[in-house]
C-alpha cells in the first residue's frame, strides 16, 4: 500500500511540477499546480515518517505561500501572462529537458550503487514532540535566528509593498 501511495504521490508531484512550469495560459494555473505539488510532497513526507514536516508543509506552503501567490496574482489582475510570444522557445526547452533528464539519469546511476534498505525508527520519529524538543534544545539558536529573519521579512515586505517608488 505504501508503494502504491508513493507512486501516486510522486507522480502527482512531478506531474504538477511540470504543470507549474508548463502552463502558459495563466499564472493561476501554475499556482494551482503548485498547490497540488505541495500537497503531494506533504504526502511523501508523511510516507517518510516526517509527520510534523508534512503538516507544516501543508500549512505553510499550501495554506499560506501559494495563497499569497494567488493573492498577488489576483491583486495585480494578471489574467494572461502577457508575454506568450516570449515564452515560446522550443530549442531552449528541448535542450533544457535533455540536460535535466541526462543529469537525473546520471544521478540515478550514481545513487543506484549505494541503495540500502531503511533502518527501523522508533515510534516518536518525526513527531511534533520529537521535532519540537530538538528545535527548542539543540537548535534553539536557529529558531531565534529564524525569528529575527521573519521579523526582518515582515518589515521588508511592508516597506516594499507600501512605498511608491517614483
Amino acid at each position, binding site marked *: 500500500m505504501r508503494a502504491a501511495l508513493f507512486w501516486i504521490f510522486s507522480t502527482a508531484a512531478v506531474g504538477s511540477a511540470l504543470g507549474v512550469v508548463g502552463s502558459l495560459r495563466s499564472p*493561476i494555473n501554475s499556482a*494551482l499546480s503548485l498547490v497540488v505539488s505541495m500537497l503531494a510532497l506533504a504526502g511523501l513526507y508523511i510516507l517518510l515518517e516526517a509527520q510534523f514536516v508534512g503538516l507544516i508543509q*501543508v500549512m505553510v506552503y*499550501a495554506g499560506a505561500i501559494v*495563497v499569497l501567490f494567488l493573492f498577488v496574482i*489576483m491583486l495585480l489582475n494578471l489574467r494572461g501572462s502577457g508575454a506568450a510570444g516570449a515564452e515560446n522557445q522550443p530549442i531552449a526547452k528541448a535542450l533544457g529537458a535533455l540536460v535535466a533528464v541526462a543529469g537525473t539519469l546520471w544521478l540515478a546511476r550514481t545513487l543506484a550503487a549505494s541503495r540500502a534498505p531503511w533502518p527501523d525508527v522508533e515510534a516518536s520519529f518525526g513527531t511534533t514532540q520529537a521535532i519540537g524538543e530538538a528545535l527548542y534544545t539543540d537548535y534553539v539558536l536557529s529558531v531565534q535566528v529564524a525569528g529575527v529573519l521573519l521579523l526582518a521579512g515582515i518589515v521588508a515586505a511592508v516597506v516594499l509593498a507600501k512605498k511608491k517608488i517614483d
Partner: protein
Amino acid sequence: MAMSTVWVSIFLFALVLLAFAPVMTWVERKQSALMQDRIGANRASILGFKALGLIHPLADVIKMITKEDTVPTGAHRFLHLVSPFIAVAPAIISFAVIPYGGVYELWGTRVSLTVADLDYGVLYVFAIGSIATYGSMLAGWAGNNNFGMLGSIRVSAQMISYEVALGITVVGLFMIFGTLRLTDMGILQQETFRLFGFLEHAGVVGKGNGFVDAVTIPMWGIVLQPLPFFMFLTALMAENKRAPFDTPEGESEIVAGYFIEYSGMKFGLYMMGEWIEVVVISALLTAMFLGGWSIPWVREAEMIAAWTPVLGENMANLAAMVLAVHVFLIKVIVLIWFQMLIRWSMPRFRYDQVMNLGWKILLPLSLANIVITAFGILIVQEVTR
C-alpha cells in the same frame, strides 16, 4: 486500529454530517425568526404536515438541485466547477480527528470513536482548514466578476490573517496538555484540580484539609484558558466567514462576494460548507475546551469500573460509549446554538475592523497568553514539586 473501530466512527461521522448539516438550515431559520420575533419557516408542508418547518430543508435541496447551473462567459470553467467542492471537502474531512468518545472494549474488540486518532490531531485540523481558503478564493476569481474578485481578495486576506491568530491562541492549551492528540485531551480533561489547593501549598492550611480537598474543578480547557477559548472561537468564526465576519460576501457592499456567480447546488455547497464548519467549530471547541465526551467530575474509567458489577463488562462499556456520544453531541449542540446567537445578534464588521481585530487584538493577546501561561506552568511546577 481494528477495522471495526473505523466502521463505528464512520457511522457516527455520516450521522453527524448528514443529520446536522441540513438541519442547520432549519435551525438557522428558526433561530433568526425567534430572535426577530417572527414565526418563520412554516410554509413548506407535505400533505399539510409541517413538522415545525422541518420540511423546509428538503424543499431547499429540491430547489437547489433543480435550478439551472449557470456558468458566466469568460469564466475559468474548470475552477468554477471545482471551487465549491474545494470549499466543502476540508470541512468534512476535518471531522476525521474529532473524538466522539474514548476507546471501549466490546466483546473482545477495541472500539475507538475517532476516525483517525492522529498524534498531530489539532495540527491536522489547522492544515486542512488552511486548504479551505482555496475554495472561496478561486470561486471569486473563476467567475470573471469584479465583485467576485473583490470577495476573493477579501477572503484570502481575512483567512490568512486569522490563521495566524488561530494557531497561536491555543498554544497555551498545548503547553498545558502537552499533546496535540484530541483523544488525549479528552482524557486529560476528565481530571480535576482543587480550587483552593494553593492555600495548602502556601502553608495557610495543613495537608488533608477537608474543605480544600472537597472543592474541585474539572480541568477543562475553558477553565484553564478562559480567554483563549473566546479568542479561539472568534478566530474560528472569522475563518468560517459567517456574520459578523462576512465581509467577503457583504451583500450591501459587493453583492454576494466570492460566490456571486454561483447558482443551484454549487451555491448550495457553499451554504453547506459554512454549516458543516459551524459543526466542526463546535466539535473542535468541545474536544479542546469543554471536556470532550466526558461528564464533569466523572472519570470514564472509574465510571465503567463502577458499572461493570451491575451490567457486565461489555454492557458497561457499551453504555459508557452511548453516554459519551450523547454528552459530546449535547455540548456540540449548545455551542452551535451559541454561534447562531452571535450570528443573529451582531451586525457585520467593517473590513478594517476585521483586520484590526485579527492583527492588533487577537494576535498580541494570544502572544501574551503564551508568556503568561508559560510562567503559570513554571510556578505550578515549582510549587507542586
